[in-house]
């Protein structure tokens, strides 16, 4: 049975009809056309679907949409402010951290949550912070470079 709920996505309140079993990932992609959040495993194993829930990074495939009511949801589409990219987005481009790019949005969201709570992180702390996000192209090297770079211009 579908139920209508209100979600606050990227600062905008949206009414959506969801099944109790619908994941936040499903609702973002299929009901709201927010295609930047990717599905790659659907079991909380890869991090491609990472979004922010009240500023915390979560796997959106592991969160029921109903459980996200009353919380602020931020997706990659919500990072751009007044047409200006987030420093992390700039840094990922600058550092060459993007290859196939399928993990990129989830990786940026995980890094966003991390940088909002950590000043001047060490490389080891950065690696720890993104260890729940898999990438098969880059070896994470330039991703760590990008997050370090963004941490200095925040």
């Amino acid at each position, binding site marked *: 049975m579908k139920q209508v709920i209100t979600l606050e996505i990227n600062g905008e309140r949206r009414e959506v009809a969801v099944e109790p079993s619908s994941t936040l990932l499903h609702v973002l992609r299929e009901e709201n056309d927010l295609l930047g959040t*990717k599905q790659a495993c659907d079991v909380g194993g890869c991090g491609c679907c990472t979004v922010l829930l009240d500023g915390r990074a979560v796997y959106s495939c592991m969160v029921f949409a109903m459980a996200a009511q009353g919380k602020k949801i931020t997706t*990659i589409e919500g990072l751009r402010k007044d047409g200006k990219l987030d420093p992390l987005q700039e840094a*990922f*481009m600058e550092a060459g951290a993007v290859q196939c790019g399928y993990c990129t949005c989830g990786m940026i969201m995980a890094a966003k949550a991390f940088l909002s709570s950590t000043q001047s992180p060490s490389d080891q702390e950065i*690696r720890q912070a*993104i*260890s729940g996000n*898999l*990438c098969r192209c880059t*070896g994470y090297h330039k991703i760590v470079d990008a997050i370090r770079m963004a941490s200095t211009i925040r």
Partner: protein
Amino acid sequence: MSRMNIVGNSVPRPDAFEKVTGGKGYIVNVRLPGMLHAKILRSPYPHARIRHIDASQAEKLPGVKAILTPAEVPQIKFHPVYFSPSTAASMIKDMLILSDTVRFAGEPVAAVAAIRPEIAEAALELIRVDYEALPAVFDTAEAMKTGAPQIYEHAPNNIAMHPSFSFGELQRGFDEADYVFENTYRTQRVHTCYMEPRVCVVESDSGGNLTVWSSTQSIFGLREKLAFALGIPVSKVRVVKPPYIGGGFGGKLDMGFLEPIAALLSLKTGRPVRIEHTRYEDFITTARNPIEIQMKTGVKKNGTFTARYAKSILDTGAHTTHGAVVLMVHGFFGFLLPYRCPNQKWEGMTVYTNNIIGGGFRGYGAPQAAFAVESQIDEICDKLKFDPIEFRLKNAHTEGEQHPFDPSFALTTYRFAECLKKGAAQMGWSKRQPAGSGSGTKKRGIGFACQPLWVSGCLGFPDIYEHSGAILKLNTDGTVNLSIATVDLGCGQNTVLSQIAAQELGVPVSAVKVTYADTDTVPFDAPSHASRVTYSAGNAVKAAAGSAKKRVFQVASGLLKAAPEDLEITDGRVHLKGSPENGLPLADVVKRAESPCVNMVPDGMQRTPLDEKGTIMGVASLAPTSNPSPAAVEFVEVEVDTETGEVKLLRVVYAHDIGKVINPAGAEGQVEGGVQQGLGFALMENLVFDPSSGACLAADFLSYKMPTALEMPPDIKCVWVESDEPTGPFGAKSLAEPCLIVPAPAIANAIYNAIGVRVRDLPITPEKIL
């Protein structure tokens, strides 16, 4: 343009902006009006005959629009591999889109298209299949025994193929040897783990014409394979090029079951049909074939090979797919060719089992071979007290020699020795301690491995496509549209090809835009595979740009009152050679060519010459003239915890004769990604199965362990040896695959150096260390 101001620089990726802001271009995002979603019913049995399928209950489920069973599917046997013609004699055609016999747990049995994926999923549960279970076999040795379950009639003892090649006199070689070494090495089944699942959308029209969107490494490969399996002409299939895909690494180098199933469901319903693999479906339909390598090697005291023999047994699973070509690449480029030896024999066996099917994976048989060859060379050096670098150099090919694979080529540029020397210096090889000599519980060791000979494409291989094409069209604002069939898997193919076009034409790289392409509108290109794109497609792009440039000079010669041969283009300006101030913007030349024949000007009518008219473009479709070999060496330092068995990779130095680096940041990215995949192959990854049922036990990212950022070494250095290959675009050769061929044996050799223990089967897990 004489100055190399574009090629050789880390120009930014044109697709990076789109990817950091959401990445709309992935095929997972393709949505069409009226689109249906299909799901595939898969066999729980590893080997069974289907007696009957009853889909009547499923058909009644509201929202179900069509069901596909084997009875409605063309029974045309095909092979799915994109780079080889469907009719190639060397390929084994043993697949059907849906068959009444299933040969691995997970083989498709039927499919449902419905208005929503959950409905299709629910309908699968309602399909009743009456299976007659058949005996199954999961081990290659068991499969080859007399009396083993026969998986195909065409393959007695389940041996799909048994190639054998020999050179010189093997026995004499062993008689001449001072030492003979015999070892067996084993590699496991691993998965490419591209992040974007395999996904396709197929649309059909009333004339039976198909349009296909698929996360694929080759649009022309898919067109041909799909048309063949459906029994329709290729002109009825149009495959749209994805602007980019979420990784491939060889795992999207064959037609999956999904594309023909979606096509048939679309033809049946008249609506677009989408199929997206679950991660489980990805894991069970493409993997690196496990190979057992029995190797016997004769050497002289002076460190030269006298005889080399190897027998390689490859588990190809339920269908051959890539298992025939992987075996040949493994034998030739992995075993026979990298080093010189007068007496050699290799034989290989591709063996059917009821395991999952294999696929392409970066390195394509060579990582398995390099693990055996490079491990054993170190074992030989240890016994002979021979320096491993000296040993390899003594047996290596040298620059200027005839190419050992195809005598019509030469090793014109070949700097293997330089890679070894520079890599060794960078790693500090001279400080290496004797094996197992460290004290304490955490012991460090260094080691290295080589891929002395590799390819820049497939030229010279039988039954493999190699030509590439490009259309380059100039716009009146001075920009350039580059239309190519080449798919960017993430490696930066679009970036590098744009750089080559910009450099040749003399425009800023930002002026080049890689545009829409499909199989109806652009020339053929072989797949993005085999380390071939920069070299092979790069040459085609360079030729197309060169031809457009020639036309620019013809049109500009009237405007600049100079002979075409006296002109050049720099930074988007056409000018007299050597004097950039005497010239005009390229845009003006294009405008002139595109302008009306007669223009109204204040003084009246002005006529422009007719022979200047026409869109300025360049078209090329060609095969490269050679297949120059790069060379790769990787040095690594590891730390082994002798109490826990844990191995940490601390440091990597990767040296590679690349000809010319087109984009340094992109090239480093290839190496760093190769280290991640190689580290996983060496220490962690294993697609394990239940040995009694053939069920995959690691088919998700929670149980299949691949390296995260925490396992990666913080220190990876690239040493580029630029040998300036004369047949390559701006001197370039290839890079991609050796980055993943060398890490596993380098790590195994470093582990030996750390603790004095040789592990001959992958992955080297803590249990094996302890």
